[in-house]
């Protein structure tokens, strides 16, 4: 990977984020959707005690469902004008496309996560100590990286012709199980749910880190062969 690839990736990330900034889909649609999901969990579960206990899991469930939208949108932007094909025919390194889009998805996901954690604190009465706060921030960063990496990889495959978008949940949801498990357990520790100590959360971060590193590398390499038509 050379400097040229990185600068192309940066350009693509900047473009994606600019598209988002101008259209405000994430802020106006995805975040409200995610918060709405959190509210509906409250209706469904109907018990403050239960809600407080499952708050961490709900945050990450809502995140994962939202990733589906973010990824679909990230690639819809391309396929609308055949931009992906145009870039590939122009000889753009697929690794650059992957990195650029993954970074853009990660940034949007980060914003979403922060909104959801705030919602959890407000709606579910979770509370965070200082040590927990550090754990929480680290968890969000690492989990987001992992999710964005794997979602961009499969998102590229599920993009394009009609009938493919429905493939994304089927492909992606099983794969992100480790992130759901790890992030939820780490967040539980951060919130102190069930009396779990903050220290118990850090090992889960190890799992999240492995996932993030693995899929960033694998994604960069596999994106080209997987998506090329």
């Amino acid at each position, binding site marked *: 990977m050379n400097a040229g690839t990185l600068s192309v990736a940066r350009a693509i990330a900047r473009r994606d984020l600019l598209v988002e900034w101008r259209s405000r889909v994430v802020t106006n649609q995805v975040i409200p959707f995610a918060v709405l999901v959190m509210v509906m969990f409250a209706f469904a579960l109907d018990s403050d005690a239960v809600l407080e206990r499952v708050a961490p899991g709900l945050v990450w469930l809502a995140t994962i469902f939202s990733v589906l939208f973010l990824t679909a949108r990230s690639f819809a932007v391309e396929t609308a004008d055949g931009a992906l094909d145009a870039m590939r025919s122009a000889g753009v390194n697929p690794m650059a496309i992957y990195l650029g889009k993954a970074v853009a998805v990660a940034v949007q996901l980060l914003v979403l996560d922060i909104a959801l954690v705030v919602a959890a604190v407000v709606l579910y009465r979770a509370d965070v100590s200082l040590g927990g706060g550090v754990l929480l921030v680290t968890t969000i960063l690492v989990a987001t990286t992992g999710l964005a990496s794997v979602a961009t990889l499969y998102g590229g495959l599920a993009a394009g012709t009609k009938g493919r978008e429905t*493939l994304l949940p089927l492909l992606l949801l*099983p*794969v992100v199980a480790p992130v759901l498990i*790890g992030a939820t357990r780490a967040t539980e520790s951060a919130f102190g749910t069930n009396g779990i100590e903050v220290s118990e959360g850090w090992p889960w971060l190890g*799992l999240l880190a492995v996932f993030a590193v*693995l899929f960033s590398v694998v994604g960069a390499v*596999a994106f080209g*062969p997987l998506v*090329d*038509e």
Partner: protein
Amino acid sequence: MTASTATRGRPDRVTGTPFTRALGIATLVGIVWLTWFGLFVTPADVNQGESVRIMYAHVPGAWLAYLAFIVTAVSSAAYLWRRTRSLTWDRIAGASAEIGVLFMGISLVTGSLWGRLTWGTFWTWDARLTTTAFLFVTYVGYLAVRNLGGTHHQRARRSAVLALLAVLEIPLVHFSVELWNSLHQEASVAMDGLMLFTLFLGVIVFTLMYVWLLLHRQRALALQDLVDDTGLDLAIAARRAEVG
């Protein structure tokens, strides 16, 4: 004489060969033998009672499913490696995955029935079972991707990469789930000689089934690809005739 009159009334004459016919007969004999032993000849287990009989179908099914997915992964790698690139590898990968999903589905159902008899529940969230369910869904997704269309080589490359990704994900998921839920009690089965033999027989019978199904399914896929190609050739010829 058209191909259809040649094959009418003769079972598996199309993708069958003398070898598969012999294999098929051996498989059928094995199935009868396994069922007879499993349901009647073997004793009930000391701990589990009669429900152990389900194991003779459940365990081989699970093992062969894993084998099938390994074959898919290896064939996918063989396709991707330039020196051995051939659509036959792709078709083997696809056929094997289908059979793997079939056997995995059977394994999940029989395992669920066994669990109901032994533990009183249709499902538990232990690592092995959860990873099995994960595997099942993953390969269902793989099969869906195989049907996305495009040229045979596009399909092959897409699927091959996906199969290798699946192989990567499985240990990760298994490890995560194990960390999450380390409460599975290994159901101890005190197996006497006859029960072990029947289990072994089960594995052999399922292996025979797997090979028979793989050969036929792989050849059916080859036929499908040939027909697709012929269809394409005909379409091109028709176009040329229009123009010329």
